[in-house]
């Protein structure tokens, strides 16, 4: 019989007392990290087992699984407790982070078991981002490895200040204190500049339980605490309450005209009814009228609480803004330096536009300057043009709109952001702000009296950017050239930006790597924008192979001003025409990074104008362009009602 008679041992009062005691326990969130096969999952299994968190049915399942997938002979393979995915059990590795919960009489714990493989570093970072302490495991036979260092650096960047250096599998080196001492010394040397407040080395065997929850007879030379003792007592003070008040507005609660509440979670500090608060981005000040909560208003609320604030007057505040202490305000800037951990298999490219998200704010952002990449082995600062997956670097970032923030070192909640790919929506990177850039504070927009409108009016036209994209040899330049002649003949003021020509001047310093291609397009888009601002009709003739950059260019221009023209000529036809003899050389391997050969071309999905050139003349293409324009009323007086070009 599986259904067992549960015993109601505790009398009612006993339960109440027990629960009251539970409520007073502090919580420690930690992760286990380190290289592959250093025993992370085994250690967590051991912790859960030693703290009696494994139920009978789970133990039975574990025994079944151990026989099927286990790697520990006849013994129970504790790793199978946490490696919950089928692929993980089959391959005997950890792919993604698992969260486990346990408690001792002194503390509650949430532990994140994170993968050791470099390939899954992003999942380690996920587990580390919410942890206060990291157990860095080292296999006593292997010592400090590359992944040990990488994980330690990421833990440090993500703000973890407490480390347990678990020298595991000490049984396999005959409990030799010299091995232990050597690894500890190595690690101390390496981590000297990582800003850790505590590093606690413990010799252990996760598999057999030495120094995990009970002191090992085999390591009489070790006088420190067991792992559990250390985890129960290490002090990771929560300082968020003592920092200045920060309240990122998450949601405006407006059920009716009489109530307008700003809902969010207090990131730091505290707030009381009657306090003065300032809207970070506008600098407008107001007072807290009520702190609304289900079950009655609060007098005061502190960091970590999710509340709703009602202000005294109708100041303008929306999601993404922040209510802050008037005495200590956050920075508001659109340019700042940040540490970036890159997660995506497509490298971070300076100049490419990403979505930047803070806890509640969102804007687009580009990396304007990749200052250096950090070598995880020796901390060397290395020059780099891109950040590959799992690399760490420091970058200057420019956002479209200013955001409110604190340096990450001062405030983990308001100093962090993630980067999201605009097309795939994947989370591609995590950022920690170091400081704002001076120039963001000092360079302001000069407002000019003669505006775009006046300049365009004088030319009797509406500015526009015709963006020709297509493979090399597709006919972009020929069509663009003919098109300009036609426009010119009807009295339009035009300019052609041609890919080859611009590479002779403005972009002569750029090559053909992905990073350089992105920068190439960024510069041309900015020039096209200035020309449109001057009132011109701009024709851009660039291969522009990546949709992300074409989208970035589109977003730079005013609504309706950007016209994407896809010059669609099949690869085989371009290679056959080969006007510059480039395809022959690229197919021969003489030219690297050639679009369509060994560098991708991402065709537009929804171009404004789609020109299929096969079997048609350049004149016919220009006719099609003119037809498109006529349909949208080329007449200059349309500027006023926004009807077209």
């Amino acid at each position, binding site marked *: 019989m599986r*259904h067992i008679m549960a015993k109601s041992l505790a009398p009612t009062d006993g339960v109440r007392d027990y629960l009251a005691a539970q*409520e007073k326990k502090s919580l420690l969130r930690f992760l286990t990290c380190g290289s592959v096969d250093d025993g992370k999952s085994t250690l967590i299994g051991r912790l859960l087992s030693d703290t009696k968190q494994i139920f009978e049915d789970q133990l039975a399942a574990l025994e079944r699984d151990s026989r099927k997938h286990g790697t520990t002979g006849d013994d129970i393979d504790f790793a199978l407790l946490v490696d919950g995915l089928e692929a993980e059990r089959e391959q005997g590795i950890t792919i993604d982070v698992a969260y486990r919960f346990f408690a001792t009489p002194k503390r509650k714990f949430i532990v994140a078991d994170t993968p050791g493989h470099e390939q899954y570093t992003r999942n380690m970072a996920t587990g580390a981002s919410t942890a206060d302490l990291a157990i860095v495991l080292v296999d006593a036979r292997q010592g400090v490895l590359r992944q040990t260092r990488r994980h330690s650096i990421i833990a440090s960047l993500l703000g973890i200040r407490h480390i347990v250096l678990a020298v595991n599998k000490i049984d396999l080196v005959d409990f030799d204190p010299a091995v232990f001492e050597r690894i500890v010394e190595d690690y101390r040397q390496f981590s000297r500049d990582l800003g850790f407040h505590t590093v606690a080395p413990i010799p252990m065997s996760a598999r057999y339980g030495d120094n995990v929850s009970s002191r090992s007879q085999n390591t009489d030379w070790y006088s420190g605490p067991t792992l559990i003792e250390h985890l129960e007592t290490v002090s990771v003070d929560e300082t968020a309450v003592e920092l200045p008040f920060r309240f990122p507005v998450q949601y405006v609660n407006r059920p009716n005209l009489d109530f307008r509440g700003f809902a969010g979670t207090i990131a730091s500090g505290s707030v009381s009814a009657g306090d003065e608060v300032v809207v970070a981005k506008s600098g407008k000040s107001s007072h807290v009228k009520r702190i609304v909560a289900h079950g009655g208003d609060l007098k005061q609320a502190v960091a970590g609480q999710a509340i709703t604030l009602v202000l005294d007057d109708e100041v303008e505040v929306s999601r993404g803004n922040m209510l802050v202490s008037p005495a200590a305000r956050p920075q508001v800037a659109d340019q700042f330096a940040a540490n970036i951990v890159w997660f995506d298999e497509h490298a971070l490219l300076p100049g490419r536009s990403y979505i930047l998200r803070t806890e509640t704010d969102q804007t687009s952002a580009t990396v304007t300057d990749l200052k250096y990449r950090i070598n995880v082995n020796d901390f060397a600062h290395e020059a780099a043009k891109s950040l590959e997956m799992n690399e760490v670097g420091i970058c200057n970032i420019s956002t479209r709109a200013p955001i409110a923030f604190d340096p990450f070192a001062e405030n983990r909640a308001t100093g962090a952001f993630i980067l999201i790919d605009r097309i795939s929506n994947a989370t591609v990177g995590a950022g920690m702000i170091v400081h704002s850039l001076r120039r963001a504070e000092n360079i302001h927009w000069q407002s000019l009296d003669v505006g775009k409108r006046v300049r365009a009016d004088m030319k009797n036209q509406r500015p526009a950017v015709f963006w020709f994209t297509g493979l090399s040899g597709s006919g972009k330049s020929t069509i663009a050239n003919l098109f300009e002649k036609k426009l010119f003949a009807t009295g339009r003021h035009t300019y052609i930006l041609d890919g080859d020509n611009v590479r002779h001047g403005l972009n002569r310093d750029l090559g053909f790597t992905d990073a350089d291609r992105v920068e190439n397009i960024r510069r041309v888009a900015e020039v096209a924008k200035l020309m449109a601002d001057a009132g011109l009709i701009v024709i851009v003739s660039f291969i522009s192979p990546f949709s992300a950059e074409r989208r970035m260019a589109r977003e730079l221009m005013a609504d309706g001003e950007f016209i994407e023209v896809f010059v669609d000529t099949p690869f085989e036809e371009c290679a056959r025409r080969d006007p510059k003899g480039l395809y022959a050389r690229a197919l021969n391997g003489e030219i690297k990074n050639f679009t369509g050969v060994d560098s991708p071309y991402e065709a537009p999905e929804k171009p404004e104008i789609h020109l299929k050139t096969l079997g048609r003349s350049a004149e016919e293409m220009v006719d099609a362009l003119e037809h498109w324009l006529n349909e949208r009323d080329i007449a200059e007086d349309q500027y006023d009602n926004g009807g077209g070009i």
Partner: protein
Amino acid sequence: MISALTHLQRLEAESIHIFREVAAAFTKPVMLYSVGKDSSVLMHLAMKAFYPAKPPFPFLHVDTTWKFREMIAFRDQMAQKLGFDLLVHVNEDGVRDNINPFDHGSNTHTHVMKTVALRQALDKYGFDAAFGGARRDEEKSRAKERIFSFRNAQHVWDPKNQRPEMWRIFNTRIAQGESIRVFPLSNWTELDIWQYILQENIPIVPLYFAKKRPVVERDGMLILKDDDRMKLRPGEVVEDRLVRFRTLGCYPLTGAIESDADTLEAIVGEMLTARTSERQGRLIDRDEAGSMEKKKREGYF
């Protein structure tokens, strides 16, 4: 010095934060309401998150038509009392084919009446985010899941390729047809749930409390004979026993435990000395190793 938050206060704040994030960032969210204790807590938190307003999304119950009668009564009573917008979806194809746990087994029944039904409902209404009450401590594939868990347009979960989830910054961006499953109770344990129910006095289905009920011993479990659709096998007898449920699902698939715990305190006391996990009473988890992950990949909550 201001006192730090208690454990439950912290969990509550985290859940409320998650609710608000979804309301702010998605156009058509829904809360999956399964009537169990976790759903009761979830509902309570949703009411708190948007107070004084009502939650700005409907509640959806996917009814397999095999739930305990007391669950359905409780559901309708709560909807009326709290005034939330309740949608009930039944897979009519499954009803027409008379899919049931007795003839088709738990696997097929759960797949058709729960997983497929849920996908039907999500497609029908075009929801872009769906709250569920799953907790990471329940089961080991759940321990791996993000709080904001991405689903492609076919509702499929790809556990080997989850989005990183950093700090409290959630990536809420999706393309047309894709959706996010959101789990505000991710970091709660079974004990936290009961403790919170006790502290906040949250109403739960009476089936959680011990009472004499007509049960049948079958396949090592005590099954409540909730209606006449359950036919006795040779040798089986219906007995009135003092039982209660740790977890609630379809009645033919949910085992009762013998217990005299008829108050919340007694339930917690019993839980503290329990030697088996709560999902032990769920037949669907035992079909095969990794069965929860399979169901989840197909779209089960």
